[in-house]
């Protein structure tokens, strides 16, 4: 694969999977600086992965797998920021929320997802994005039955919490 082809694939994937990447970033990182940091990490990993993509799986599955792998590893880092001199006051975020008011229900959903452990967060994201158990098993490397158990537990947990008061009408 030439560098030009790699660039082209990366540009295509970035346009196609921007929403997917933002979801993963939002689920794993809370402060905007961490979100910036994680997005950069994921993009780097996606870039490096392109020559090894053999089209045995769909590109969506491939990108999701890399994003989740990176996010899971990143979330274990004790110190997130690469530069200790960076603070909220000195560094503006590269990512900006659009001017439209964010949907509070989505914010609530992300808060709940963030409270799950790293693996359950991945499962929850994949399930909400419509991946089958089989695809999730391929991405995460665990059995379909195990995924079924975990998904049921996550669904119950989210439904229970949504019925509690003060959850933005969810």
């Amino acid at each position: 694969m030439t560098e030009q082809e790699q660039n082209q694939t990366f540009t295509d994937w970035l346009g196609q999977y921007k929403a997917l990447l933002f979801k993963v970033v939002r689920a794993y990182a809370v402060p905007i600086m961490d979100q910036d940091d994680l997005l950069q990490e994921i993009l780097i990993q996606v870039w490096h992965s392109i020559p090894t993509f053999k089209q045995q799986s769909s590109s969506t599955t491939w990108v999701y797998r890399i994003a989740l792998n990176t996010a899971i590893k990143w979330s274990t880092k004790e110190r997130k920021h690469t530069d200790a001199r960076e603070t909220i006051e000195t560094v503006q975020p590269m990512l900006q929320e659009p001017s439209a008011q964010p949907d509070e229900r989505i914010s609530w959903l992300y808060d709940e997802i963030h409270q799950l452990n790293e693996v359950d967060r991945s499962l929850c994201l994949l399930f909400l994005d419509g991946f089958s158990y089989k695809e999730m098993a391929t991405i995460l490397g665990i059995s379909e039955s195990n995924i079924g158990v975990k998904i049921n537990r996550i669904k119950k947990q989210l439904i229970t919490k949504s019925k509690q008061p003060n959850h933005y009408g969810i």
Partner: protein
Amino acid sequence: MEFDELQKIWDVQTKEPMWVINETVLRNRVQAKTQQTFHITRISELLSIIVNAAAGSFVLAVNLAKSPANLAMYLLATWIFATALYVLVSRIRRLNGEKTFDRTVLGELAHAISMATYQVRLSRLLRWNMLPIVALTLLGVWEGGKSVWLLLGLIAFFALAYVASGWEHSIYAAKKRELEVLREKLTQ
């Protein structure tokens, strides 16, 4: 609320991405990284020039004050002065080459990468430069009839300095890689 309704809420954001990338901030970030690289380069160059010039002067002064003169120590002083001169010339050439980059984000990034490459090359060169300095120093001390313990102490000192310079070099190399990754992201 049932899970299907949560699903509908979730799907809204797929159609409307929650964030946009602020290109102004991206540009500022590139500039900040650039400034950081230049600062490190400037300090590193000046330190190399000053330390080598001072060390060369010291060795020369000690040798001149002693009788009989030690040839290895003269050679050592010459080598150290030559190193300081080399760094000075490299610095002048680097400063002259700075005008060849344009003021776009990509141009500034290319500039920063050029500086980082220079820094990596300089740190590697100065690290290998330690070897003739060590050889001449040990030879000079040996010819001066100093004790074996002094020789061993010097060897230990230089070994530590060699390890530390390798660590320093790896920091510069990592910084360069970081800039290159940023450039890749920008050009894709």
